[in-house]
């Protein structure tokens, strides 16, 4: 018994199969549309980087001689970029939980759409948002005194995009597993604070005592931050720069693998 003999042929069953690229675009466009429609979200996302620069940057200026760099913003901006890439992305899972609760995830999973596309489309939205925020942050810093080579900034933004994609994938995978804000929020809080403090994002770890430096050395994000700072200094050849980039690629692959694996499983 086949459907073709019992139901009139419809494009849904006889038409071209949907491709990963097309599905990804559909999911991306939808996610982007939802984000842009939310004015509060839009204002907060754009104000956040500016607030960091304007309200926290000046605190660092008197310290710049102690930090060993010519310019406080050259240290500070890469750190904030990495922070955006990690922490902005980690919180995207909350949106997925809201979609799950509304039944949107199940309704998408019952379509023939590629499971990878359901994840990738959302992650692409997050990466685009991140790149807009990052670019804005750099532009705002220039009049305040940021001096950095364009190539270094672009390389850093590429690294941040990859990092953001990794953390967004992980966030979605965890959200799809936990399915409740009440479980997801404490998990994020438990992870975010130690990682933030041990990454040298706000102040370089060179200021830290030996034992603290030793602990932070095992945090890959510390190396990502230092790599980004090297890029901002124009040190493209340094091992610091490429250690950071290499670790980002590794985290990117790992995060992506984790996310895809979860999205291919049943939602239960």
């Amino acid at each position, binding site marked *: 018994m*086949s459907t073709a003999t*019992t*139901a009139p042929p*419809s494009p849904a069953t006889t038409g071209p*199969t949907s491709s990963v690229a*097309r599905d990804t675009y559909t999911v991306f466009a*939808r996610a982007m549309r939802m984000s842009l429609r939310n004015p509060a979200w839009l204002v907060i996302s754009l104000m956040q980087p500016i607030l960091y620069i304007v309200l926290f940057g000046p605190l660092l200026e008197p310290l710049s001689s102690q930090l060993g760099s010519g310019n406080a913003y050259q240290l500070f901006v890469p750190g904030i970029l990495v922070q955006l890439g990690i922490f902005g992305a980690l919180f995207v899972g909350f949106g997925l939980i809201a979609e799950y609760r509304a039944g949107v995830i199940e309704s998408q999973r019952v379509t023939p759409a590629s499971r990878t596309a359901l994840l990738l489309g959302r992650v692409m939205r997050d990466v685009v948002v991140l790149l807009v925020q990052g670019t804005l942050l750099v532009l705002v810093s220039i009049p305040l005194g940021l001096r950095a080579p364009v190539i270094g900034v672009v390389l850093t933004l590429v690294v941040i995009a990859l990092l953001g994609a990794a953390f967004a994938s992980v966030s979605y995978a965890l959200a799809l597993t936990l399915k409740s804000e009440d479980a997801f929020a404490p998990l994020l809080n438990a992870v975010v604070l130690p990682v933030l403090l041990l990454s040298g994002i706000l102040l370089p770890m060179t200021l830290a005592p030996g034992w603290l430096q030793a602990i932070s050395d095992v945090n890959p994000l510390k190396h990502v931050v230092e790599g980004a700072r090297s890029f901002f200094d124009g040190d493209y050849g340094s091992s610091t720069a490429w250690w950071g980039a290499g670790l980002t690629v590794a985290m990117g692959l790992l995060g992506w693998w984790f996310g895809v694996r979860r999205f291919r499983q049943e939602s239960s």
Partner: protein
Amino acid sequence: MIHARGLARTFRKKKQEVHAVAGVDLDVEAGEIVGFLGPNGAGKTTTLRMLTTLLAPTAGTATVAGCDLVTDPVGVRRRIGYVSQSGATYPDARAGEEVVDHARLYGISTAEATARGKQLFRELDLDGLWERQPKSMSGGQRRRLDIAVGLVHVPGLVFLDEPTTGLDPQARANLWQHIRGLREERGTTVFLTTHYLDEADALCDRILVIDAGRIVAEGTPDELKSQVGGDVLTVTVEHAETAGRVAALMAALPGAEVPQVLDTRVVGRAPQGGAALMTLVRELDAAGIAVAGIESRRPSLDDVFLDLTGRSLRESGGPAGPGGPAGADRTADKQPQEMAR
């Protein structure tokens, strides 16, 4: 269209096993409207989620729309539509957009999806709500939007999980009409779940009664009703003291079962209710018992369910959930939030 054998799903929660579906065999032929009738927690949603590839069975096999559930889930997905019990639309989206986005995931172009979506909006009385946000629609409108989303790609087989819950009587009747139309105009096969007896009765060619994860009966509404031993006789007496004597008379009718006495009401069953009624009227008259009302009616599906499980579907079907024991192998885990998933 659907052939399942021994389909089962066990959930494990905190070391407790919940046998949500405990071995279901079912066959649905093309063009049928088949209803899955059972109280809350019976395993209807879990069965549907397995048949729609959302949940992997822990045992059993099934082919859906000609494709194997396990080896060709994408084939199944391409050929079916699913309207979940808990809805499918995002509160902040726009109604029309939800339909179009969904259709695009089946490879349908935006233009065609828009045309079909608008057509469905007309058919489902959603005219003028294309730009509306689901959060500002009424429950009934949202439910019909869910259905439009599930039908936009014109599937040959649709699964509807409690499609009319939350609808007012007129909207329900409308939706029934639409579901019949799907079959008549497009030959669509419909598999729906419900805990409403009248819905199963009015809409379905065939009913599968499910309780505690097992199918306990199967047949057309008429076949099921004729399984019940005879018609239902109800006598309401003026004075409760006489109810016992009425019960004795009723029990003496040929082929009758022992009747139940509920204050002034005596309810029993006997084959050929009409003839039994005549006999009873004469005997009540001869005995000089004052009667306020007397009737014989064909058994309802609720009588079927009562017969099969010892519980009334009307009582156990309430949203409060943990009313009665739903079977020996279940756990106490019956919160409504869980079932909504």
